[in-house]
């Protein structure tokens, strides 16, 4: 018995070491990673500042110098010249020059990613530090593409013979030290960094699958920063004395993708009615717990040029919705469900589990639609089910979260979502509009900011009038930060966690 007691004591004492290492910053989030490939999990490596891109983006989405200290475009917009910083070294000691940058861009082009959409005709180095990109037509989002994580600059030694990354050698203030997919990644300060070196020597990222585990980690003082908190944990964490919760809007919108060629959804009035049925305020307040995040248009605040400032707030108006549907011949049946020519207003809505709030919002929408006599059958599928449903035509409604800041210039994303005759894998479906793709094409070549804004406003107006996709809510990123961290900053584009600027309280 005595030996059992001493064993237990030893066991407990072994755990008594402090939960936090004074040398190591720990952070957690829900993202799992499986590789070191920029095309797959590159976002994690730019966030942890292992890899860097030629250009950077500031909080307003404006291009900033990155590994290229300046850049220029030719008069006709067909040639971009990037002047690389001198003295940049990769973590393996190799110097960054135009040849190395060229090789990294060529690898990026050989894999799926945003750079494939860019009309690049030729990549060439003009001298040791000058890189030229020749386009077949002017393409203004190229700068944003070169700031995207899929085009991060890696040393030639990073790639294996098959072109996949074996061990990432980036240029950032932190170098990769431990790689334990899918859960833990450790980085250590890179002493030869070209810019201001990091203050905290080491950083560990840990995937936390369950939102409650993540919240408890920061409450217990085990983890310094937790990204992506669930709504329920936010209230709890706000009451903790040594934790601060930061709420930052991010350019991501929850929206309803719909098949506009479906007989029920083809008339504009039907789509307008669906939008009027939504009680966005209730969802914002009770599901997401972020009052004021109701979306009255698709493109989120923060992308000012694309926003219709005069548009009134989206409010629920059941009587008007009913009137619009009655105008289309829909009348309530005996069970309250709308009927027309013997058909019930019954549709299916799919969503995916990668973002846990989506199916809660979907069921809230299901209940709200039921009040208007529309039955929705909600099912959760794999995220690829949205794209395959779009292409095989089986999709009716889908609740999706779209990141308009995936590429810092929303033009690239809008082109993917509406460029195909008004349609796209994650955007409109069965909608026919030639004006919008033509406008997008024109804006890609537009260099005058005023004309660019006018075109952007027209596109926002078209999407808002025609409702090929119904906006629901804007996202707010909730981050819990331990009080021992100084200098926390949040990048709304989530490209960079700016860890190198953070330090511990003395």
């Amino acid at each position, binding site marked *: 018995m005595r030996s*059992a007691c001493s064993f237990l004591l030893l*066991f*407990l004492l*072994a*755990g*008594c*070491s402090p*939960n936090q290492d004074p040398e190591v910053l720990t952070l957690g989030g829900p993202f*799992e990673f*499986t*590789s070191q*490939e920029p*095309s*797959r999990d590159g*976002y994690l490596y730019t966030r942890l500042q292992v890899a860097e891109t030629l250009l950077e983006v500031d909080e307003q989405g404006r291009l900033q110098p990155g590994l290229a200290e300046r850049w220029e475009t030719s008069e006709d917009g067909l040639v971009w010249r990037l002047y690389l910083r001198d003295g940049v070294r990769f973590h393996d000691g190799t110097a960054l020059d135009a040849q190395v940058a060229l090789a990294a861009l060529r690898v990026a082009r050989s*894999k*799926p*990613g945003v750079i*494939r959409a860019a009309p690049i005709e030729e990549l060439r180095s003009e001298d040791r530090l000058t890189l030229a990109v020749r386009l077949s037509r002017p393409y203004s989002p190229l700068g944003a593409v070169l700031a995207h994580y899929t085009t991060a600059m890696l040393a030639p030694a990073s790639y294996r013979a098959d072109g*996949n990354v074996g061990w990432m050698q980036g240029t950032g203030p932190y170098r990769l030290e431990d790689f*334990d*997919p*899918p*859960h*833990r990644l450790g980085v250590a300060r890179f002493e030869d960094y070209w810019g201001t070196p990091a203050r905290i020597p080491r950083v*560990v990222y*840990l*995937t*936390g*699958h*369950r939102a*409650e*585990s*993540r919240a*408890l*980690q920061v*409450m*217990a*003082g*085990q*983890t310094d920063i937790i990204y992506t908190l669930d709504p329920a944990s936010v209230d709890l964490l706000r009451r903790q004395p040594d934790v601060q919760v930061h709420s930052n809007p991010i350019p991501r919108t929850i929206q309803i993708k719909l098949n506009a060629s479906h007989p029920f959804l083809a008339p504009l009035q039907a789509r307008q009615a669906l939008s009027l049925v939504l009680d966005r305020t209730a969802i914002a307040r009770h599901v997401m717990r972020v009052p004021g995040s109701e979306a009255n248009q698709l493109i989120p605040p923060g992308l000012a040029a694309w926003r219709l400032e005069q548009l009134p707030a989206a409010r629920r108006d059941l009587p008007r919705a009913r009137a619009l549907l009655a105008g289309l011949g829909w009348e309530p049946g005996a069970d309250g469900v709308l009927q027309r020519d013997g058909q019930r207003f019954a549709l299916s809505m799919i969503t*995916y589990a*990668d*973002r846990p709030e989506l199916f809660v919002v979907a069921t809230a929408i299901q209940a709200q639609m039921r009040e208007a006599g529309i039955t929705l059958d909600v099912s959760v*599928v*794999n*995220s*690829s*089910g949205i*794209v*395959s449903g779009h*292409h095989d035509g089986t999709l009716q409604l889908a609740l999706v979260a*779209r*990141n308009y800041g*995936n590429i810092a210039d929303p033009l690239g994303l809008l082109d*993917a979502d509406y460029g195909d005759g008004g349609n796209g*894998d*994650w955007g409109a479906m069965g909608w026919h509009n030639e004006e919008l793709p033509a406008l997008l094409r024109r804006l890609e070549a537009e260099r005058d900011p005023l004309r660019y804004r006018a075109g952007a406003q027209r596109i926002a107006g078209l999407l808002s009038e025609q409702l090929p996709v119904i906006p629901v809510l804007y996202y707010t990123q909730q981050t819990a930060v331990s009080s021992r961290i100084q200098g926390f900053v949040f990048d709304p584009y989530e490209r960079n966690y700016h860890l190198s600027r953070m330090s511990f309280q003395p």
Partner: protein
Amino acid sequence: MMTLVAKRLLQAALMIWSIGTLSYVLMRLLPGDMAFRIAAGRYGYDNVNLAASEAVRAELGLDRPAWQQYLAWLADLVRFDLGDSLVSGLPVAHEVSHLVLHTLQLAVAAFACAVLLALPVGLFAAFRAGGWFDRCSLVASAFLRAQPVFVIGLALVLLFSLHLKLFPVAGFNGSKYLVLPAVSLALVMAAVSSRVIRHSAVGVIRSAFFDFSRVKGLSFAQSFWRHGVRNAALPVVAFLGIQFAGAIEGIVMIESLFSWPGVGHGLAHAVFNRDVPMIQAAAMALGLIFVGLNLLVDIACYLIDPRERTEP
């Protein structure tokens, strides 16, 4: 003994082929286009589109007939090559061994804790069968078994991580990260095994041969040590073997609660992403562990029970 081992080896080879084939067929039967699924797993939900899935289809040759892909897998298997993960592109053998090692680490620690807990509790309850300790342990074990393991884990986190700040909430970076997940699992395992031990020991204590040894003049302790332990151990060892196997496959909830990189979690994600080589390898690894465990249980029973050795 050698026949026993040879029989198990043959079983293992058959099992590898059948599990691999079955998981291949099942994955083919699941609805949804594999190329889309793999593209979503690789590039994330923000970047999955038709172009990415077509690139995946071309790269992996998914438009080849199913039987050709199956034969290619079988040929690789004969060369002990499990292939690369369709999602991460890394060798499956490396990925699965990483996951299996972590799962085994957790399962062994939990198993050891469970045995340390269940043996004294079960034996003491058996020695005082029907007494207050026996009844209390029955209530406690019923209560613990009725809880989802996830709830026990959360309760331990609240107590030991949040209030006492003794152990980390989640992660894996040294022995202190192992304590809470292992203890949560051990509590659930011990809840059942302590009752099995108790019943088995009570059966022995109430048997005629035990009474005879007491009549012979041996003390209770001597009788139990000489005649009780071996007899009581047989069903317990068999049960613990099954329980250990159950622990390995059934700890997905604990793995995800504590962010533990185990094979259960890895297998679940591989199914979501249609990562067939990962599924095959993980299922095979689990199958091999089962066969290995069965072998160990057989050998243990063989050593414990002299009848096995004398019978032809």
